[in-house]
Each structure stands twice: as C-alpha cells, then as structure tokens.
C-alpha cells in the first residue's frame, strides 16, 4: 500500500549511504559518523553542478559521486589513515569531529541559506490506488541499481573477492599477495561515490543546507546496523526496515518521536541480534 511505497522511497535515498557506511566498517572496523556530512557535501556538489554549471540532474549526480569519492579518499588519507589501529571509539569521535569540520567548511563557502535543484515540482500519477511521481520511481530505481551493482561487484569481481578477503583479515590477504592498498583505495572510492549518490537523492527532497549532516547521519547508521555491519545488501534492507518503522511511527504512534525510532530499532537489534539481520558476527575493535 501507500505506506510501503513511501517507505521504499525514503529508504532508497539512504540506502546507498548505508551501504557505503557498511563498506567502511567492514574494511576498517569503525563507524564513520561523517557519512552524513559526506552526503551533505554531495548534495552541495550536485547543486553546484546543477545550478552553477547547468548540468542536468543525472550528470550532477555523477559529479557529486566523483566529488565525494575524492573527498572520502582525501579524508581517509589525511585523517583516518594515520589513525589506523586505534580503537573504534576513538575513530568514531574523530569521525564526529570531521563531520563538524565538513559542515562548517561547506557553510564557509555556501552560507546557511537553503538551496534546491533546478527541477519542476509536479503532482503524482495515481495507479492502482497508489500515488507516486516519476521522481519516486527514478529514485527507487537508481538506488536499487546501485545496491545490486555493489552486490554484483562484491560477489563476482576480483575486486569484490579481494575486498571481502581484506575485510576478513587484512594481514592474511597481504601475505596471499593481494594488493591491499589498492583494494582499500577502490573500496573507499566506492563508498564515497555512494555517499555522493545519497546526497544527490536527498537534495531532491529536502532543502539543501549545511545542517543536513545531522539529520542524515543517524538514519544511515541505523540502517547499516539493522542490516548487519558485514553485509552491504543487508544495509539496503536495513534502510527499508527503518523506513517502514518511521512511517509506522508517524502514522500510528506519535509523529514527533519519529526521530527516536531509528535509535529504538538499533537498540532492539543490537540487544536481540547483534549481528544484524544479515551479518555474521563482525569483529570490532
């Protein structure tokens, strides 16, 4: 019904970022809280391409993905790389600090006023009693494609296999001759691109402004945790679960507490099934 369609649409926006978050966690074993800030930067990058350079929205999205990939690689090199080996908690704190820094760098250059893409706002088509817009379909489609794409890469390509090996045990992978550095670089770039994709999708719905990083970080993490931190596809599914839970809360329980739902779900999952719905028990620092 409409509720499910709406949940899918909300989930579709966050799913790529959740997958990216999971990739980082699989490889480096820390929660990259800056996912929200990176997605927000992606939104601004897409906006700059769309309004500043006049690209159509799909090209702006690609631009955003490229920008965020570069941004994540840069932060990994500068910030997280030297701190490899520290505890997950420390890295979480660093990620939060990074989130602050990114938010304010964006604010420094763009200011606090809201921005939007150059797209018309139209009403829905009604089919079988369901209301949706072409945009909804595109968002869900693109997101699903990205999810399946990543899943395919992980399952079928040498890169994917290498990634899973490195995630499992980096030292062993290196001994076996895998180019760990390059695999990590590719994975980080992929995760960055996913953050950029989410950012572009977010920009379609929300007012683009620097404060977005806080609004996005928690749902993304919630989705990833629910799905299981070892499984990228699980993250996408987790996004759907969170979306459903939120719609449910607003429709039947209490609208203002929608924000707490993400956490409640995380807590439930962590207490009842710590490996998430799809993950295997992941080693954490």
């Amino acid at each position, binding site marked *: 019904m409409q509720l499910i369609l709406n949940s899918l649409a909300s989930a579709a926006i*966050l799913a790529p970022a959740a997958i990216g978050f999971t990739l980082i966690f699989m490889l480096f074993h820390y929660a990259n809280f800056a996912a929200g800030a990176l997605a927000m930067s992606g939104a601004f990058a897409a906006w700059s391409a769309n309004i500043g350079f006049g690209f159509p929205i799909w090209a702006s999205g690609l631009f955003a993905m490229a920008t965020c990939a570069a941004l994540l690689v840069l932060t990994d090199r500068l910030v997280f790389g030297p701190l490899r080996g520290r505890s997950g908690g420390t890295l979480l704190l660093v990620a939060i600090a990074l989130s602050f820094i990114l938010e304010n760098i964006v604010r420094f250059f763009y*200011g606090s006023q*809201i921005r*939007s893409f150059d797209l018309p*706002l139209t009403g829905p088509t009604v089919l079988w009693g369901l209301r949706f817009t072409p*945009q909804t379909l595109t968002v869900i489609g693109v997101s699903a494609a990205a999810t399946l794409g990543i899943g395919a890469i992980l399952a079928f390509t040498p890169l994917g296999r290498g990634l899973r090996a490195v995630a499992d045990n980096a030292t062993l992978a290196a001994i076996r001759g895998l180019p760990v550095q390059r695999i990590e670089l590719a994975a980080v770039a992929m995760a960055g691109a996913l953050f950029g994709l989410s950012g572009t999708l977010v920009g379609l719905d929300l007012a683009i402004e*620097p*404060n977005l990083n806080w609004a996005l970080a928690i749902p993304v993490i919630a989705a990833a945790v629910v799905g299981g931190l070892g499984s990228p596809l699980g993250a996408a599914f987790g996004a759907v679960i969170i979306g459903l839970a939120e719609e449910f809360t607003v*429709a039947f329980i209490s609208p203002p507490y929608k924000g707490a739902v993400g956490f409640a779900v995380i807590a439930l999952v962590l207490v009842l099934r710590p490996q998430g719905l799809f993950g295997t028990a992941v080693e954490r620092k």
Partner: protein
Amino acid sequence: MKLSRRLLLSGAAIALSAPAYLRMGLAQSAPIVIGSMTPLTGGGGPYGPEKSDAHRAVVAKVNADGGVMGREVVLVSENSETNPEAAVRAARKLIDADGVSAILGTWASSVTLGIMPLCQEADVLQLYSGSSDYLPDADRKGICFNLQPLNRAWAVALADLAVQRGFKEVGFAGPKNDFASSMGESFGESMQKLGGSISGEPFYYNPDQASYRAEAEQLIQLDAPALFIAGYITDFTPMFRELVRGGYTGQIFALSFAVGPEFKTAVGDAANGILHGSPVPPIGKDSYDAYLELVGLTPNGQVQASYGCMAYDEINLCLLGMEAAKSTEAAAVAAEIRKIANGPGDRITTFAEGKALISAATPMNYDGASSSVDFQPNGMLQSRDFALYEIEDGTDTILLTTTSSATE
C-alpha cells in the same frame, strides 16, 4: 606547546579587552559599541545573515555620515547558533569583554529569553524579533523592544485571513519549536470564534528530519480543504514538496518568511497559489524599499528578507534613541525610543532624517521597514496589521489585510 598556545589566547583576550577599560574613561570620544547577535548556524541559519547584514549596512552608513553624537559606532557580531547555551556565553563576551550598550538581532525566542537575565542585570538594551508569550513579562526594566508580533497575533491573523478568503475548515501543521508549538491551539480557537474549525488536531512534527514523506501523508489523510503550515523555510520546503508529490490539491497557507525568494526558486511554478501572511507592510512601502536597496537587494514584488527589515528597524531605533538621549544609558535610550517610535510627530524612515529632527528639537514618528513600529508600554508592537498575499508567477500579490484582535 599547549601551554604557550593558551597563554597566547589569554594574552590576546586581555589585549583586546584593554580598549574596553580605556573606553570607560574617555566617554566623549570613545566609540559606541553595539552587539549584533544573530543565528548564523542552527535552525535560524537561513535568517541570521540578513539581520546581520542589515545591522552592518546601517552602521556603515551612519558612521559615514558622522556617527552618533559625533562618535563612531562599532558593531560586534556574534553567532547565537540558535542555541541559548551558546548565546548566553556570546552575550557574556559582548557585555563584559566588549562593553556593548545594546544587543540586537536575536531571533529565536529561547535565545532572547536566555540572554535577558544577563542583559537586564547589566542594563543592556535589547531589540529583537520574537514571538513567545514569555517575552513581555521577562523584561522588568522596560529596556527590551520586540519588532515582531507575538505568536497569538500570527495565529489569529492567519485564521481571520483564511476565513475571509472563504476557508472555514483548515488543518494545522507546525514544527515543534518555540514559534509554532503553541500556535495550533490559538489557531484553532480563532477559527472557532470566526465560525470555522480546525481539521482534526494540530499536527506537530520535528524539523531537521531526513524525510517528511510520512508527515505529509498524515496531512493528506486529513482530507482538509486547506492546510496552514507554520514552518520555517527549511522544513516548509520539503513538507510542501511532499504534499504536492503526494497529490494534495487543497489550499496551502504559510507564513511569508517561509516562502521567500529561495523557496520560490526551489519549487518553481508549484508555488503559485500559495497564500501567505505577514505583518504589514512591506511590499511597496518606501522604507522597505529603502532598506532593500541599502543592503543590495532589489525590490521585486516579493516579500523578501522578512527578518532583515526588522533588523533594519532595530538598529535604526537603537541609534536614534541614543542620539536623542545623548547617552547610551539603557533607560534613557529606551524612553527616547518609545517617543521616536510612537510619535506623534513628523514621519521619518531613516537615521539621517531622524538626526536632523533631533537637532531641530522636533518631535518625530519612526515608520519602519517591517511595520509602522509603534510600541506598547511592555515593548511589544501595538500594530497587529497583517496582510495576506498570493504567490502569482514568482511575485507576491497582496489580497487583503486584517488587524489581528489578539490582545498584547
């Protein structure tokens, strides 16, 4: 390394504060220091810069024309972060380290109320825009002035405008913040008094969310012929998008500061037909246009910079009050501000005009860019004239006006 950094910062702080001590001695030729505290980050982020710009533009012009009482006006800007915690510390710095005589520009009522105890204690004037019902009582010394109508006035006015426009049943939705959180009840009561009703219960939602689809869906389910959404631009924009995408075809009522130029750019033609309310003036009024030109905006038939024009009036009144009182002492300045704002006297709209009349000892009446700016004894606006606009092809056309009958 850390110790010397700390010393450097403390040293810098002390060095910068030294002039404050000096200022106290050389009263006559020392500059007048005024604090501009606006929300540059946080929920009020979209609205802070226009207030800050208005303050700075006026101060620059006044200084170029010879200052106040022949003294230079120094404006110190701080970020309230739309957060009372941070604002209190910023206010402390403004009051104690910079020695300001007035703090202008606070936007969130929680921030204004948060710093009021400090300002009252230090006899620091406050001119601000706020809507909370707590504001009048918190000012014990009569040194605070509010350039925005209170909460209830907005609700009553919008209800009146809706009913006049033929909408007897209107649903209410608002973010849970200090502006809208009690507006639902006032709006409902007003609708009932006018023979209408509110659809269902007031619907409150959280601003700063990743998606508003669920909330919009709830509102669509209400099946109301009209919806009044009392949000700010950051949450109104996505909410409106979701309503349109969800297929809502009823009438949307909003507040003018939520549907400014950035909103119209964001949603394009879909904005046409939105009805929004705002205190009268500004469109077409000479003082409003003068303000726009001063800060580098062009009058374009839209209600823009709704808070900036209030800030323009804040700083004008503050400086005029000081010029008239020939002092920066809060009570004296406040008394002058009342006379200048309320009149009766010759109409003035800028500092320069007022200064001329002060020298000629002629009574005057300041007519502002955001409203006619007449104050009640408690510092709140007297006038509760509101206008209803309709968005047509990217401009705001005025449809009708009303005087809100809400008390205080």
